[in-house]
């Protein structure tokens, strides 16, 4: 098994003040979410509805997708189907080439990150400007986003200041957020005005109407889509919901879960291209139907990408998004990514204490920590695990299946290493790097019991 997450996390934690700051910033968002959710007496009911609507959608996906395609096409939207990331990128490239377009703006979309669209287009000589502020910052720095809602949450304002000084010629050392935001705004304004094509994500697509909704707090998706003559929206097929009336459930859940806002600042509804505009929608599978077919993991397709599970996750908060080395980090990413590439992401389901906070915070009731547990079983069964770990586990299994051996081993050493060899499967005892070992008592509980317990009386 790869140890990527553990190693990357260790690197992140080496800067402890920054780790604390990261942890506290995200916890602040989590607390805002608590307050917002507490304001709604029907919160748990909403979660149940959200979950059930998604159950219904996933059980009838093909008919809803068909319905969506018909309605959207009738509205004048061009619908494309992409079976994987490559096809998704090629479809977009084709549209760009057809129009001979140079100037492209994109609003934040985790799907295009998942498909590595930016790299693909760049490779083909096409530049795209990310217009979400956080996304623009990480784009300047040639880094992937570290969080699906707050892409630059791993950066402090000092980092942003340096980045903007390098790319936007802002004053060196000026860390004033207002000043920096204004600089970004001026820079992006020109990009919007000049743009010939806008790429956006999709938060919800509605089968009944053939329309879709994009939620942003900066209005950048709207700015792009409203100025450019061509609009391409990209969605994973799980973004579908059956009816427009279901939107109310999800819009209330999404903003509160994501940032603690009662509603996202801009929830923009798109139904058809405006006169002289071209509107495309690319519907992507990229492993989703495979996940739909895995009974234990299909629930993960309910995800509305609010990132509440990131903010609540004690591991995510202390290891940073990049330690997950995938587009979608955090607890839900650790379920989605092994589906995309089990070998490369075999470490992720283990990057959790299984504390269960994610499951309970999730607005659509995904049993996240149970799925992490199940992935571990699958990954071990498929053989993506270190031999040393396997040997340690086999040893333990033998010891614990045989009471006499267990007691002998206990007596012999009464040390962690004898009973739990996995704790010392490396040259150094990892437990005691930063912790003392428990002090071994003279007698076990059983020894005491034989002398003092009822069985002896």
């Amino acid at each position, binding site marked *: 098994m790869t140890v990527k997450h553990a190693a990357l996390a260790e690197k992140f934690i080496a800067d402890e003040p920054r780790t604390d700051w990261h942890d506290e910033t995200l916890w602040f968002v989590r607390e805002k979410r608590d307050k917002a959710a507490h304001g709604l007496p029907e919160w748990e009911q909403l979660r149940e509805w959200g979950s059930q609507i998604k159950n219904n959608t996933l059980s009838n996906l093909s008919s809803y997708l068909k319905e969506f395609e018909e309605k959207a096409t009738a509205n004048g939207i061009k619908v494309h189907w992409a079976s994987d990331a490559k096809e998704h990128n090629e479809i977009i490239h084709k549209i760009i080439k057809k129009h001979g377009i140079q100037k492209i703006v994109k609003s934040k979309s985790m799907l295009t990150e998942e498909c590595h669209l930016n790299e693909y287009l760049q490779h083909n000589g096409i530049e795209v400007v990310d217009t979400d502020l956080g996304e623009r910052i990480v784009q300047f720095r040639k880094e992937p986003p570290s969080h699906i809602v707050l892409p630059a949450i791993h950066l402090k304002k000092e980092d942003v200041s340096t980045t903007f000084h390098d790319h936007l010629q802002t004053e060196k050392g000026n860390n004033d957020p207002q000043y920096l935001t204004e600089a970004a705004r001026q820079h992006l304004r020109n990009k919007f005005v000049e743009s010939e094509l806008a790429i956006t994500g999709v938060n919800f697509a509605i089968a009944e109407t053939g329309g879709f909704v994009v939620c942003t707090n900066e209005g950048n998706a709207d700015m792009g889509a409203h100025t450019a003559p061509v609009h391409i929206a990209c969605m994973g097929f799980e973004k579908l919901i059956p009816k427009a009336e279901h939107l109310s459930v999800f819009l209330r859940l999404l903003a509160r879960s994501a940032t603690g806002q009662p509603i996202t600042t801009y929830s923009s509804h798109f139904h058809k291209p405006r006169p002289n505009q071209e509107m495309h929608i690319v519907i992507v599978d990229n492993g989703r139907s495979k996940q739909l077919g895995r009974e234990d993991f299909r629930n993960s397709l309910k995800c509305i990408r609010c990132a509440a599970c990131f903010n609540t996750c004690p591991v995510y908060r202390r290891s940073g998004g990049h330690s997950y080395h995938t587009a979608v980090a955090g607890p839900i990413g650790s379920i989605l990514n092994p589906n995309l590439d089990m070998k490369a992401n075999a470490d992720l389901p*283990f990057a959790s204490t*299984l504390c269960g*906070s994610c499951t309970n915070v999730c607005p659509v009731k995904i049993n996240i920590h149970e799925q992490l547990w199940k992935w571990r*079983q699958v990954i*071990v069964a498929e053989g993506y695990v270190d031999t040393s770990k396997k040997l340690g586990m086999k040893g333990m299994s033998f010891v614990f299946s045989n009471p006499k051996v267990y007691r002998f081993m206990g007596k012999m050493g009464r040390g962690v290493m004898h009973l739990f060899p996995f704790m010392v499967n490396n040259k150094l005892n990892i*437990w005691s790097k930063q912790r003392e070992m*428990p002090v071994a008592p003279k007698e076990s*509980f059983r020894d005491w*019991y034989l002398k003092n*317990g009822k069985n002896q009386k």
Partner: protein
Amino acid sequence: MKVALFIPCYIDQFYPNVGIATLQVLEKLGCDVTFPLQQTCCGQPMANSGFASLSKGCDINFVQNFAGFDYIVAPSGSCVLHVKEHLQDDKHPQEALQIRNTIYEFTEFLTDILKVESINASFPFKVGMHNSCHGQRGLNLSSMTERMLPEFSKPEQLLNMVKDITLTKAKRNDECCGFGGTFCVFEEAVSVKMGKDRIKEHEDNEVDYITGGDTSCLMHLEGILKRQGSTTKTIHIAEILNGFL
């Protein structure tokens, strides 16, 4: 009421006092307690590491030891949760099911089955309660900040019956301590950082002791406290309820 005492392997080997306290509290409360002598481990360390397939032998041994009692009680929420969710024995499915349905974590057994209303114990110290995740979220021993449901805590309900105790709450009352089974070694850096943060919040409250219902969390926190040379100690809730002094 025939109660079987399950003392998880690491408590048996490293924390016999927790086992003794658990046994004595149960006996004081009038239970007829038996400690099945061939017990070992519940199999959780293997299962949580992805090796549930290797816990068969453990499971069979567990069923052999614990079939036929009215209740099974253990001072470890985490092990109880594992047994409740995963215990399996193809040859004795009925017995396994019976065990899964009648195994209780120590504090939950006291509040829900014995319905304890008073406890004869005094503990004149400042104490911070550490909620273990498996106890809190897995076994529903206390409410959690993620869910918008009424607040409650079974362990705190018991601690409040102890004389002279001063209970404090950590700022993030239900944050994980980072033990997480094999997580504590395979993700050592994150695990220790989480433990340090947990400790700091309790130390901000100037507690004498950190207590909880899961010895594994306490073992992890104790390891860090000792390495830091801290005067804060850890103590299992059974020891407090048993009148540790």
